[in-house]
Protein backbone atom coordinates (compact mmCIF):
# COMPACT_ATOMS: atom_id res chain seq x y z
CA UNK A 1 0.00 0.00 0.00
CA UNK A 2 1.47 3.34 -1.05
CA UNK A 3 1.35 6.45 1.08
CA UNK A 4 0.40 9.72 -0.68
CA UNK A 5 2.15 11.60 2.12
CA UNK A 6 5.37 9.73 1.37
CA UNK A 7 5.16 10.68 -2.30
CA UNK A 8 4.47 14.33 -1.60
CA UNK A 9 6.71 14.88 1.45
CA UNK A 10 9.57 12.42 1.04
CA UNK A 11 9.67 11.53 -2.67
CA UNK A 12 13.36 10.55 -2.55
CA UNK A 13 12.65 7.94 0.07
CA UNK A 14 9.50 6.80 -1.70
CA UNK A 15 11.14 6.36 -5.11
CA UNK A 16 14.20 4.79 -3.49
CA UNK A 17 12.01 2.07 -2.10
CA UNK A 18 9.90 1.87 -5.28
CA UNK A 19 12.88 1.27 -7.53
CA UNK A 20 13.77 -1.80 -5.50
CA UNK A 21 10.51 -3.41 -6.62
CA UNK A 22 9.22 -4.56 -9.97
CA UNK A 23 7.53 -1.97 -12.14
CA UNK A 24 3.82 -1.81 -11.49
CA UNK A 25 1.67 0.64 -13.46
CA UNK A 26 -1.68 -0.11 -11.83
CA UNK A 27 -1.58 2.74 -9.33
CA UNK A 28 -0.06 5.26 -11.78
CA UNK A 29 -2.81 4.39 -14.26
CA UNK A 30 -5.39 4.91 -11.50
CA UNK A 31 -3.86 8.32 -10.67
CA UNK A 32 -3.90 9.32 -14.32
CA UNK A 33 -7.46 8.05 -14.64
CA UNK A 34 -8.59 10.25 -11.74
CA UNK A 35 -6.91 13.29 -13.29
CA UNK A 36 -8.32 12.39 -16.69
CA UNK A 37 -11.82 12.08 -15.29
CA UNK A 38 -11.61 15.47 -13.56
CA UNK A 39 -10.16 17.00 -16.71
CA UNK A 40 -12.91 15.35 -18.72
CA UNK A 41 -15.57 17.00 -16.57
CA UNK A 42 -13.92 20.38 -17.12
CA UNK A 43 -13.74 19.72 -20.86
CA UNK A 44 -17.38 18.64 -20.88
CA UNK A 45 -18.42 21.93 -19.23
CA UNK A 46 -16.25 24.08 -21.49
CA UNK A 47 -17.31 22.28 -24.67
CA UNK A 48 -20.96 22.55 -23.70
CA UNK A 49 -20.50 26.26 -23.15
CA UNK A 50 -18.76 26.87 -26.45
CA UNK A 51 -21.57 25.02 -28.21
CA UNK A 52 -23.82 27.94 -27.32
CA UNK A 53 -22.02 29.81 -30.09
CA UNK A 54 -23.47 27.44 -32.64
CA UNK A 55 -26.54 28.64 -34.54
CA UNK A 56 -29.92 27.54 -33.25
CA UNK A 57 -31.02 24.07 -34.36
CA UNK A 58 -27.80 22.44 -33.21
CA UNK A 59 -28.84 21.95 -29.59
CA UNK A 60 -28.99 18.15 -30.08
CA UNK A 61 -25.40 18.08 -31.19
CA UNK A 62 -24.26 19.95 -28.09
CA UNK A 63 -24.46 16.86 -25.84
CA UNK A 64 -22.59 14.71 -28.31
CA UNK A 65 -19.90 17.33 -28.80
CA UNK A 66 -19.59 17.68 -25.01
CA UNK A 67 -19.12 13.92 -24.69
CA UNK A 68 -16.48 14.09 -27.40
CA UNK A 69 -14.81 16.83 -25.37
CA UNK A 70 -14.93 14.65 -22.26
CA UNK A 71 -13.44 11.70 -24.09
CA UNK A 72 -10.76 13.80 -25.73
CA UNK A 73 -9.69 15.19 -22.36
CA UNK A 74 -9.60 11.67 -20.95
CA UNK A 75 -7.40 10.39 -23.74
CA UNK A 76 -5.23 13.53 -23.83
CA UNK A 77 -4.35 13.10 -20.14
CA UNK A 78 -2.94 9.64 -20.85
CA UNK A 79 -1.11 10.96 -23.91
CA UNK A 80 0.40 13.79 -21.87
CA UNK A 81 1.49 11.26 -19.27
CA UNK A 82 3.33 9.33 -21.96
CA UNK A 83 4.80 12.48 -23.49
CA UNK A 84 6.25 13.53 -20.14
CA UNK A 85 7.79 10.08 -19.70
CA UNK A 86 9.25 10.13 -23.22
CA UNK A 87 10.63 13.63 -22.81
CA UNK A 88 12.28 12.82 -19.53
CA UNK A 89 13.66 9.57 -20.93
CA UNK A 90 15.24 11.45 -23.81
CA UNK A 91 16.89 13.82 -21.37
CA UNK A 92 18.14 10.90 -19.28
CA UNK A 93 19.63 9.36 -22.42
CA UNK A 94 21.30 12.64 -23.25
CA UNK A 95 22.76 12.91 -19.77
CA UNK A 96 23.92 9.29 -19.98
CA UNK A 97 21.63 7.84 -17.38
CA UNK A 98 20.12 4.40 -17.39
CA UNK A 99 16.50 4.88 -18.18
CA UNK A 100 13.69 2.34 -18.23
CA UNK A 101 10.62 3.64 -20.01
CA UNK A 102 8.11 1.71 -17.93
CA UNK A 103 9.86 2.79 -14.73
CA UNK A 104 9.79 6.41 -15.87
CA UNK A 105 6.14 5.98 -16.80
CA UNK A 106 5.50 4.68 -13.28
CA UNK A 107 7.48 7.55 -11.69
CA UNK A 108 5.76 10.21 -13.82
CA UNK A 109 2.41 8.66 -12.95
CA UNK A 110 3.09 8.85 -9.21
CA UNK A 111 4.39 12.37 -9.72
CA UNK A 112 1.04 13.37 -11.17
CA UNK A 113 -0.60 13.14 -7.74
CA UNK A 114 -0.30 16.92 -7.01
CA UNK A 115 -2.14 17.53 -10.25
CA UNK A 116 -5.21 15.83 -8.83
CA UNK A 117 -5.52 18.85 -6.51
CA UNK A 118 -4.74 21.20 -9.38
CA UNK A 119 -7.38 19.60 -11.60
CA UNK A 120 -9.99 19.85 -8.86
CA UNK A 121 -9.24 23.56 -8.34
CA UNK A 122 -9.28 24.22 -12.11
CA UNK A 123 -12.58 22.39 -12.45
CA UNK A 124 -14.01 24.49 -9.61
CA UNK A 125 -12.92 27.66 -11.40
CA UNK A 126 -14.53 26.48 -14.64
CA UNK A 127 -17.81 25.47 -13.07
CA UNK A 128 -18.18 28.70 -11.08
CA UNK A 129 -17.03 31.06 -13.81
CA UNK A 130 -18.52 29.69 -16.99
CA UNK A 131 -22.19 30.41 -16.22
CA UNK A 132 -21.31 34.12 -16.37
CA UNK A 133 -19.74 33.73 -19.78
CA UNK A 134 -21.99 34.78 -22.64
CA UNK A 135 -20.93 33.67 -26.10
CA UNK A 136 -22.58 35.02 -29.23
CA UNK A 137 -24.57 32.71 -31.44
CA UNK A 138 -22.95 33.07 -34.82
CA UNK A 139 -21.93 31.10 -37.88
CA UNK A 140 -19.26 33.61 -38.88
CA UNK A 141 -15.91 31.82 -38.57
CA UNK A 142 -14.03 35.05 -37.88
CA UNK A 143 -16.39 35.87 -35.07
CA UNK A 144 -16.11 32.33 -33.68
CA UNK A 145 -12.33 32.56 -33.88
CA UNK A 146 -12.29 35.93 -32.14
CA UNK A 147 -14.69 34.71 -29.49
CA UNK A 148 -12.63 31.59 -28.82
CA UNK A 149 -9.46 33.62 -28.54
CA UNK A 150 -11.11 35.96 -26.10
CA UNK A 151 -12.45 32.93 -24.24
CA UNK A 152 -9.04 31.32 -23.83
CA UNK A 153 -7.70 34.64 -22.57
CA UNK A 154 -10.52 35.02 -20.09
CA UNK A 155 -9.55 35.36 -16.41
CA UNK A 156 -11.02 31.95 -15.57
CA UNK A 157 -9.05 30.16 -18.23
CA UNK A 158 -5.88 32.02 -17.32
CA UNK A 159 -6.36 31.20 -13.65
CA UNK A 160 -6.85 27.53 -14.53
CA UNK A 161 -3.69 27.66 -16.61
CA UNK A 162 -1.63 29.19 -13.78
CA UNK A 163 -2.97 26.60 -11.36
CA UNK A 164 -1.94 23.87 -13.80
CA UNK A 165 1.58 25.29 -14.08
CA UNK A 166 1.95 25.62 -10.30
CA UNK A 167 0.96 22.01 -9.64
CA UNK A 168 3.12 20.81 -12.54
CA UNK A 169 6.06 22.46 -10.78
CA UNK A 170 5.23 20.36 -7.73
CA UNK A 171 5.09 17.26 -9.93
CA UNK A 172 8.44 18.19 -11.43
CA UNK A 173 9.93 18.42 -7.96
CA UNK A 174 8.70 14.87 -7.24
CA UNK A 175 9.81 13.56 -10.64
CA UNK A 176 13.33 14.84 -10.02
CA UNK A 177 13.81 12.37 -7.16
CA UNK A 178 12.16 9.59 -9.15
CA UNK A 179 14.53 10.15 -12.07
CA UNK A 180 17.50 10.31 -9.74
CA UNK A 181 16.63 7.01 -8.10
CA UNK A 182 15.61 5.20 -11.27
CA UNK A 183 18.34 6.42 -13.64
CA UNK A 184 21.23 6.52 -11.19
CA UNK A 185 21.92 10.17 -11.99
CA UNK A 186 23.15 12.89 -9.71
CA UNK A 187 20.38 15.06 -8.28
CA UNK A 188 21.58 18.00 -10.39
CA UNK A 189 21.40 16.01 -13.65
CA UNK A 190 18.06 14.51 -12.68
CA UNK A 191 16.78 18.04 -12.08
CA UNK A 192 17.97 19.05 -15.57
CA UNK A 193 16.22 16.00 -17.06
CA UNK A 194 12.97 17.26 -15.62
CA UNK A 195 13.60 20.99 -15.96
CA UNK A 196 14.10 21.03 -19.73
CA UNK A 197 10.72 19.46 -20.61
CA UNK A 198 9.20 21.55 -17.84
CA UNK A 199 10.42 24.80 -19.37
CA UNK A 200 9.12 23.71 -22.77
CA UNK A 201 5.78 22.82 -21.20
CA UNK A 202 5.52 26.20 -19.44
CA UNK A 203 6.43 28.08 -22.63
CA UNK A 204 3.84 26.17 -24.63
CA UNK A 205 1.17 26.61 -21.97
CA UNK A 206 1.68 30.31 -21.48
CA UNK A 207 2.28 31.10 -25.16
CA UNK A 208 -1.36 32.10 -25.55
CA UNK A 209 -0.62 35.04 -23.27
CA UNK A 210 1.91 36.47 -25.66
CA UNK A 211 0.15 35.77 -28.96
Amino acid at each position, binding site marked *: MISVTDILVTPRHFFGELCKKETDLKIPVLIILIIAFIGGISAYVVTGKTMTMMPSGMEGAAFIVSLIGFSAALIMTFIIWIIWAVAIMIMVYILKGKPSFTRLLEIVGYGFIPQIFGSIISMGIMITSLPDLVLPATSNMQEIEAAM*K*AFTNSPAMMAAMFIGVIFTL*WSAYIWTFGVKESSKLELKKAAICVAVPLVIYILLTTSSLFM
Partner: protein
Amino acid sequence: MKPEIIILLILAMLLAPAVSAASTSTNTAASYIEITSYEVSPSVFMKWDTGTIKVTIKNTGTSSVEIKSASLFTKDFTLINEQSYSTVGTVGPGTSRDFTFTIRADTSDGIYYPRFYLNFAGGGSLSHLVPVKVESTPLEISIIDIPDEFQEGVKESITVLVGNPRENAANGVVVKPESDSASFIQNSYFIGELLPDGSQEVTFDVIPTESGDIVFMVEYRNGLNLHTTEQVLIYTIGEGKKNAEMVINNVEVAGSGTYTVTGDVTNAGLKNAKSVIVTSADPAVPTDPNRLYVVGELEPDDFSSFEVTFTTEGATEVPLLILYKDDDGNSYEEKVTVTLEGGFTQSGSQTSPEGSDGFPVELIALVIIAAAGVGGAIIYSCKKQGKI
Protein backbone atom coordinates in the same frame (compact mmCIF):
# COMPACT_ATOMS: atom_id res chain seq x y z
CA MET B 1 -45.48 188.16 -52.85
CA LYS B 2 -42.80 188.59 -55.42
CA PRO B 3 -43.20 186.70 -58.70
CA GLU B 4 -39.75 185.04 -58.34
CA ILE B 5 -40.81 183.57 -55.06
CA ILE B 6 -44.03 182.29 -56.53
CA ILE B 7 -42.14 180.68 -59.44
CA LEU B 8 -39.71 179.00 -57.02
CA LEU B 9 -42.60 177.64 -54.98
CA ILE B 10 -44.27 176.32 -58.14
CA LEU B 11 -40.98 174.69 -59.27
CA ALA B 12 -40.52 173.29 -55.83
CA MET B 13 -44.02 171.85 -55.87
CA LEU B 14 -43.41 170.38 -59.35
CA LEU B 15 -39.99 168.90 -58.52
CA ALA B 16 -40.84 167.65 -55.06
CA PRO B 17 -42.72 164.52 -56.19
CA ALA B 18 -39.89 163.51 -58.60
CA VAL B 19 -37.24 163.85 -55.93
CA SER B 20 -39.46 162.09 -53.50
CA ALA B 21 -40.12 159.29 -56.02
CA ALA B 22 -36.40 158.82 -56.69
CA SER B 23 -35.49 158.38 -53.02
CA THR B 24 -38.39 155.95 -52.32
CA SER B 25 -37.36 153.58 -55.11
CA THR B 26 -34.01 152.94 -53.37
CA ASN B 27 -35.33 152.56 -49.86
CA THR B 28 -38.50 150.59 -50.60
CA ALA B 29 -36.67 147.95 -52.68
CA ALA B 30 -35.35 146.43 -49.45
CA SER B 31 -38.69 146.76 -47.80
CA TYR B 32 -40.38 144.93 -50.68
CA ILE B 33 -38.00 141.96 -50.44
CA GLU B 34 -38.71 139.55 -47.62
CA ILE B 35 -36.74 136.49 -46.62
CA THR B 36 -39.59 134.08 -46.34
CA SER B 37 -37.63 130.97 -45.31
CA TYR B 38 -34.28 129.32 -45.13
CA GLU B 39 -33.33 125.70 -45.01
CA VAL B 40 -30.11 124.13 -43.77
CA SER B 41 -29.35 120.63 -45.01
CA PRO B 42 -28.38 118.54 -43.14
CA SER B 43 -30.06 120.25 -40.28
CA VAL B 44 -27.10 119.50 -38.05
CA PHE B 45 -23.69 119.26 -39.66
CA MET B 46 -20.88 117.02 -38.55
CA LYS B 47 -17.37 118.29 -38.93
CA TRP B 48 -16.19 118.06 -42.54
CA ASP B 49 -19.76 117.58 -43.76
CA THR B 50 -20.81 119.27 -46.94
CA GLY B 51 -24.33 120.67 -47.05
CA THR B 52 -26.48 123.46 -48.33
CA ILE B 53 -28.15 126.60 -47.09
CA LYS B 54 -31.19 127.56 -49.16
CA VAL B 55 -32.62 131.03 -48.64
CA THR B 56 -35.97 131.97 -50.19
CA ILE B 57 -36.91 135.61 -50.77
CA LYS B 58 -40.14 137.13 -52.00
CA ASN B 59 -40.95 140.47 -53.54
CA THR B 60 -43.98 141.60 -51.61
CA GLY B 61 -44.11 144.93 -53.37
CA THR B 62 -46.05 146.05 -56.45
CA SER B 63 -43.07 146.72 -58.65
CA SER B 64 -40.03 144.74 -59.71
CA VAL B 65 -36.89 144.88 -57.67
CA GLU B 66 -33.56 144.46 -59.34
CA ILE B 67 -31.00 142.57 -57.32
CA LYS B 68 -27.39 142.97 -58.26
CA SER B 69 -25.89 140.04 -56.38
CA ALA B 70 -26.40 137.60 -53.52
CA SER B 71 -23.78 136.03 -51.37
CA LEU B 72 -23.13 134.25 -48.09
CA PHE B 73 -20.52 135.60 -45.73
CA THR B 74 -18.95 133.18 -43.26
CA LYS B 75 -15.52 132.66 -41.79
CA ASP B 76 -16.43 129.36 -40.13
CA PHE B 77 -17.50 127.44 -43.23
CA THR B 78 -16.00 127.10 -46.63
CA LEU B 79 -18.34 128.43 -49.29
CA ILE B 80 -18.01 126.14 -52.26
CA ASN B 81 -20.20 127.97 -54.83
CA GLU B 82 -18.90 131.44 -54.08
CA GLN B 83 -19.63 133.08 -57.44
CA SER B 84 -22.99 131.45 -58.13
CA TYR B 85 -25.01 134.58 -57.46
CA SER B 86 -22.63 137.32 -58.57
CA THR B 87 -25.43 138.52 -60.86
CA VAL B 88 -29.04 137.89 -60.00
CA GLY B 89 -31.45 140.13 -61.93
CA THR B 90 -34.97 141.30 -61.32
CA VAL B 91 -37.46 139.81 -58.95
CA GLY B 92 -40.95 140.55 -60.09
CA PRO B 93 -43.70 141.65 -57.72
CA GLY B 94 -45.22 138.74 -55.84
CA THR B 95 -42.59 136.27 -56.97
CA SER B 96 -40.10 134.29 -54.97
CA ARG B 97 -36.52 133.36 -55.59
CA ASP B 98 -34.28 130.71 -54.00
CA PHE B 99 -30.60 131.12 -53.29
CA THR B 100 -28.73 127.90 -52.48
CA PHE B 101 -25.22 127.96 -51.09
CA THR B 102 -23.03 124.90 -50.69
CA ILE B 103 -20.83 124.94 -47.62
CA ARG B 104 -18.38 122.59 -45.93
CA ALA B 105 -18.22 122.53 -42.15
CA ASP B 106 -14.51 122.55 -41.55
CA THR B 107 -14.95 123.83 -38.07
CA SER B 108 -15.47 122.46 -34.61
CA ASP B 109 -18.80 121.79 -32.97
CA GLY B 110 -20.98 124.78 -32.22
CA ILE B 111 -23.66 127.10 -33.62
CA TYR B 112 -22.60 129.46 -36.32
CA TYR B 113 -24.35 132.32 -38.14
CA PRO B 114 -23.38 132.78 -41.77
CA ARG B 115 -24.72 136.05 -43.15
CA PHE B 116 -26.94 136.01 -46.25
CA TYR B 117 -26.44 139.25 -48.13
CA LEU B 118 -28.45 140.81 -51.01
CA ASN B 119 -27.07 143.72 -52.93
CA PHE B 120 -29.77 145.74 -54.77
CA ALA B 121 -29.03 147.28 -58.11
CA GLY B 122 -30.48 150.62 -57.15
CA GLY B 123 -28.39 150.78 -54.08
CA GLY B 124 -29.06 149.38 -50.64
CA SER B 125 -28.80 145.86 -49.34
CA LEU B 126 -30.47 143.25 -47.24
CA SER B 127 -28.78 140.72 -44.97
CA HIS B 128 -29.90 137.95 -42.72
CA LEU B 129 -28.12 135.64 -40.30
CA VAL B 130 -28.74 131.93 -40.84
CA PRO B 131 -28.03 129.73 -37.79
CA VAL B 132 -26.14 126.51 -38.62
CA LYS B 133 -25.35 123.80 -36.04
CA VAL B 134 -22.24 121.66 -36.17
CA GLU B 135 -22.30 118.64 -33.91
CA SER B 136 -20.09 115.64 -34.55
CA THR B 137 -21.53 113.01 -32.21
CA PRO B 138 -21.68 109.74 -34.19
CA LEU B 139 -24.24 106.97 -33.97
CA GLU B 140 -23.76 104.66 -31.01
CA ILE B 141 -23.47 100.87 -31.35
CA SER B 142 -23.83 98.67 -28.31
CA ILE B 143 -23.42 94.90 -28.04
CA ILE B 144 -26.32 93.97 -25.85
CA ASP B 145 -26.44 90.18 -26.08
CA ILE B 146 -23.66 87.67 -26.63
CA PRO B 147 -23.42 83.98 -25.74
CA ASP B 148 -21.70 83.06 -22.49
CA GLU B 149 -18.97 81.51 -24.53
CA PHE B 150 -18.11 80.81 -28.12
CA GLN B 151 -17.28 77.41 -29.52
CA GLU B 152 -15.42 76.54 -32.66
CA GLY B 153 -17.82 75.92 -35.52
CA VAL B 154 -20.91 76.45 -33.40
CA LYS B 155 -23.42 79.05 -34.50
CA GLU B 156 -24.23 81.65 -31.89
CA SER B 157 -26.29 84.86 -31.95
CA ILE B 158 -25.01 88.32 -31.16
CA THR B 159 -27.44 91.21 -30.76
CA VAL B 160 -26.29 94.79 -31.26
CA LEU B 161 -28.22 97.97 -30.66
CA VAL B 162 -27.68 100.97 -32.94
CA GLY B 163 -28.75 104.25 -31.38
CA ASN B 164 -28.91 107.81 -32.70
CA PRO B 165 -27.90 110.36 -30.06
CA ARG B 166 -27.89 113.17 -32.63
CA GLU B 167 -30.43 115.98 -33.02
CA ASN B 168 -31.18 115.02 -36.61
CA ALA B 169 -32.07 111.75 -38.26
CA ALA B 170 -29.44 109.50 -39.77
CA ASN B 171 -30.26 107.94 -43.11
CA GLY B 172 -29.20 104.79 -44.89
CA VAL B 173 -28.04 103.13 -41.68
CA VAL B 174 -26.39 99.76 -42.37
CA VAL B 175 -24.71 97.44 -39.85
CA LYS B 176 -21.95 95.17 -41.17
CA PRO B 177 -20.03 92.55 -39.15
CA GLU B 178 -16.43 91.89 -40.13
CA SER B 179 -14.00 89.29 -38.80
CA ASP B 180 -11.04 87.21 -39.93
CA SER B 181 -11.84 84.52 -37.40
CA ALA B 182 -15.55 84.03 -37.86
CA SER B 183 -18.18 83.83 -40.54
CA PHE B 184 -21.68 85.24 -40.45
CA ILE B 185 -25.04 84.11 -41.69
CA GLN B 186 -26.05 87.74 -42.37
CA ASN B 187 -23.38 89.82 -44.09
CA SER B 188 -25.16 93.11 -43.31
CA TYR B 189 -28.38 94.51 -41.93
CA PHE B 190 -30.13 97.56 -43.41
CA ILE B 191 -31.91 99.73 -40.86
CA GLY B 192 -32.63 102.77 -43.03
CA GLU B 193 -33.62 105.97 -41.26
CA LEU B 194 -32.84 106.27 -37.60
CA LEU B 195 -34.69 109.13 -35.92
CA PRO B 196 -33.12 111.29 -33.20
CA ASP B 197 -32.88 109.37 -29.93
CA GLY B 198 -34.15 106.33 -31.77
CA SER B 199 -32.55 102.88 -31.72
CA GLN B 200 -32.78 99.57 -33.52
CA GLU B 201 -31.74 96.05 -32.44
CA VAL B 202 -29.96 93.85 -34.95
CA THR B 203 -29.09 90.18 -34.45
CA PHE B 204 -26.27 88.43 -36.26
CA ASP B 205 -25.59 84.69 -36.35
CA VAL B 206 -21.88 84.13 -36.06
CA ILE B 207 -19.85 80.93 -36.53
CA PRO B 208 -16.37 81.38 -35.07
CA THR B 209 -13.46 79.31 -36.31
CA GLU B 210 -10.93 80.48 -33.74
CA SER B 211 -10.48 83.10 -31.05
CA GLY B 212 -10.37 86.63 -32.40
CA ASP B 213 -12.48 89.74 -32.75
CA ILE B 214 -15.58 90.86 -34.57
CA VAL B 215 -15.94 94.46 -35.78
CA PHE B 216 -19.50 95.71 -36.03
CA MET B 217 -19.41 98.65 -38.43
CA VAL B 218 -22.31 101.06 -38.79
CA GLU B 219 -22.49 103.08 -41.99
CA TYR B 220 -24.92 106.00 -42.17
CA ARG B 221 -25.50 109.26 -44.00
CA ASN B 222 -25.84 112.75 -42.60
CA GLY B 223 -27.26 114.52 -45.60
CA LEU B 224 -24.92 113.63 -48.44
CA ASN B 225 -22.10 112.65 -46.17
CA LEU B 226 -21.20 109.03 -45.44
CA HIS B 227 -20.03 108.27 -41.91
CA THR B 228 -18.98 105.10 -40.17
CA THR B 229 -18.64 104.08 -36.58
CA GLU B 230 -17.66 100.72 -35.18
CA GLN B 231 -17.63 98.55 -32.10
CA VAL B 232 -15.15 95.71 -31.58
CA LEU B 233 -16.07 92.49 -29.81
CA ILE B 234 -13.10 90.39 -28.70
CA TYR B 235 -13.95 86.79 -27.99
CA THR B 236 -12.20 83.55 -27.12
CA ILE B 237 -13.21 80.03 -27.97
CA GLY B 238 -14.42 78.18 -24.89
CA GLU B 239 -15.16 74.55 -24.08
CA GLY B 240 -18.92 74.79 -24.05
CA LYS B 241 -19.73 74.74 -20.35
CA LYS B 242 -23.46 74.74 -21.04
CA ASN B 243 -23.30 72.10 -23.71
CA ALA B 244 -24.97 68.77 -23.49
CA GLU B 245 -22.62 66.32 -21.78
CA MET B 246 -23.06 62.63 -22.27
CA VAL B 247 -22.36 60.32 -19.35
CA ILE B 248 -22.51 56.54 -19.56
CA ASN B 249 -23.10 54.33 -16.57
CA ASN B 250 -24.59 50.98 -15.55
CA VAL B 251 -22.41 49.46 -18.24
CA GLU B 252 -22.60 45.73 -18.68
CA VAL B 253 -20.42 43.84 -21.11
CA ALA B 254 -21.48 40.42 -22.30
CA GLY B 255 -19.98 38.09 -24.83
CA SER B 256 -16.61 37.07 -26.11
CA GLY B 257 -15.39 37.87 -29.59
CA THR B 258 -18.77 39.35 -30.30
CA TYR B 259 -19.71 41.62 -27.44
CA THR B 260 -22.93 43.19 -26.35
CA VAL B 261 -22.57 46.32 -24.27
CA THR B 262 -25.62 47.68 -22.50
CA GLY B 263 -25.92 50.69 -20.25
CA ASP B 264 -27.52 54.06 -19.69
CA VAL B 265 -26.57 57.27 -21.43
CA THR B 266 -27.45 60.46 -19.54
CA ASN B 267 -27.37 64.08 -20.64
CA ALA B 268 -25.54 65.73 -17.74
CA GLY B 269 -25.26 69.07 -19.54
CA LEU B 270 -27.52 72.10 -19.63
CA LYS B 271 -28.62 71.96 -23.26
CA ASN B 272 -30.64 69.47 -25.22
CA ALA B 273 -28.82 66.73 -27.09
CA LYS B 274 -30.56 65.72 -30.29
CA SER B 275 -30.16 62.64 -32.44
CA VAL B 276 -28.08 60.85 -29.83
CA ILE B 277 -26.44 57.73 -31.28
CA VAL B 278 -24.26 55.21 -29.44
CA THR B 279 -21.84 52.99 -31.34
CA SER B 280 -18.42 51.40 -30.97
CA ALA B 281 -15.10 52.47 -32.48
CA ASP B 282 -11.79 50.95 -33.50
CA PRO B 283 -10.51 48.37 -32.52
CA ALA B 284 -14.10 47.21 -32.30
CA VAL B 285 -16.05 46.54 -35.49
CA PRO B 286 -19.77 47.29 -35.09
CA THR B 287 -21.89 44.32 -36.01
CA ASP B 288 -25.54 43.39 -36.16
CA PRO B 289 -28.03 43.55 -34.58
CA ASN B 290 -27.05 46.88 -32.99
CA ARG B 291 -24.24 48.44 -34.96
CA LEU B 292 -25.68 51.81 -34.01
CA TYR B 293 -28.15 52.47 -31.24
CA VAL B 294 -30.27 55.54 -31.86
CA VAL B 295 -31.36 57.04 -28.55
CA GLY B 296 -32.93 60.17 -30.04
CA GLU B 297 -33.30 63.41 -28.11
CA LEU B 298 -32.08 63.72 -24.54
CA GLU B 299 -33.07 66.72 -22.50
CA PRO B 300 -30.82 67.88 -19.65
CA ASP B 301 -30.80 65.31 -16.82
CA ASP B 302 -32.67 62.86 -19.01
CA PHE B 303 -31.32 59.38 -19.68
CA SER B 304 -31.99 56.38 -21.88
CA SER B 305 -30.73 52.84 -22.06
CA PHE B 306 -28.70 51.62 -25.02
CA GLU B 307 -27.32 48.38 -26.42
CA VAL B 308 -24.53 48.05 -28.98
CA THR B 309 -22.92 44.98 -30.47
CA PHE B 310 -19.46 44.66 -31.96
CA THR B 311 -16.64 42.22 -32.60
CA THR B 312 -13.03 42.59 -31.59
CA GLU B 313 -9.99 40.39 -31.19
CA GLY B 314 -7.59 40.62 -28.33
CA ALA B 315 -8.73 44.05 -27.19
CA THR B 316 -9.29 44.54 -23.49
CA GLU B 317 -10.76 48.00 -23.89
CA VAL B 318 -13.08 49.36 -26.54
CA PRO B 319 -14.20 52.96 -27.00
CA LEU B 320 -17.88 53.70 -27.24
CA LEU B 321 -18.79 56.74 -29.30
CA ILE B 322 -21.73 58.93 -28.41
CA LEU B 323 -22.71 61.11 -31.34
CA TYR B 324 -25.23 63.91 -30.91
CA LYS B 325 -26.23 67.31 -32.21
CA ASP B 326 -27.33 70.57 -30.71
CA ASP B 327 -30.37 72.62 -31.63
CA ASP B 328 -28.49 74.24 -34.52
CA GLY B 329 -27.37 70.94 -35.99
CA ASN B 330 -23.76 71.16 -34.84
CA SER B 331 -22.33 67.67 -34.37
CA TYR B 332 -20.56 66.52 -31.23
CA GLU B 333 -18.80 63.31 -30.32
CA GLU B 334 -17.84 61.88 -26.96
CA LYS B 335 -15.78 58.78 -26.34
CA VAL B 336 -16.10 56.45 -23.37
CA THR B 337 -13.79 53.50 -22.91
CA VAL B 338 -15.31 50.24 -21.81
CA THR B 339 -13.28 47.40 -20.33
CA LEU B 340 -14.23 44.07 -21.85
CA GLU B 341 -12.94 41.82 -19.06
CA GLY B 342 -12.30 38.87 -21.32
CA GLY B 343 -15.89 38.51 -22.30
CA PHE B 344 -17.44 38.11 -18.88
CA THR B 345 -20.51 40.05 -17.99
CA GLN B 346 -19.79 42.75 -15.52
CA SER B 347 -23.04 42.16 -13.69
CA GLY B 348 -21.46 39.39 -11.69
CA SER B 349 -18.16 41.02 -11.11
CA GLN B 350 -19.12 44.64 -10.81
CA THR B 351 -19.76 44.35 -7.10
CA SER B 352 -16.41 42.70 -6.43
CA PRO B 353 -13.20 44.63 -6.83
CA GLU B 354 -10.96 43.77 -9.74
CA GLY B 355 -7.29 43.55 -10.39
CA SER B 356 -5.47 46.12 -12.47
CA ASP B 357 -6.10 44.20 -15.70
CA GLY B 358 -9.69 43.36 -14.98
CA PHE B 359 -8.63 40.03 -13.43
CA PRO B 360 -11.05 39.15 -10.64
CA VAL B 361 -9.40 39.41 -7.25
CA GLU B 362 -10.79 36.05 -6.13
CA LEU B 363 -8.97 34.29 -8.94
CA ILE B 364 -5.74 36.17 -8.23
CA ALA B 365 -6.04 35.20 -4.57
CA LEU B 366 -6.70 31.58 -5.51
CA VAL B 367 -3.62 31.40 -7.73
CA ILE B 368 -1.47 33.04 -5.04
CA ILE B 369 -2.77 30.65 -2.36
CA ALA B 370 -2.13 27.66 -4.63
CA ALA B 371 1.39 28.90 -5.39
CA ALA B 372 2.06 29.49 -1.70
CA GLY B 373 0.66 26.07 -0.79
CA VAL B 374 2.76 24.27 -3.39
CA GLY B 375 5.83 26.30 -2.49
CA GLY B 376 5.28 25.54 1.19
CA ALA B 377 4.83 21.83 0.46
CA ILE B 378 8.06 21.71 -1.57
CA ILE B 379 10.00 23.58 1.12
CA TYR B 380 8.56 21.32 3.78
CA SER B 381 9.50 18.31 1.68
CA CYS B 382 13.06 19.60 1.23
CA LYS B 383 13.45 20.02 4.99
CA LYS B 384 11.88 16.68 5.72
CA GLN B 385 14.12 14.86 3.22
CA GLY B 386 17.18 16.60 4.59
CA LYS B 387 16.51 14.98 7.94
CA ILE B 388 16.15 11.51 6.46
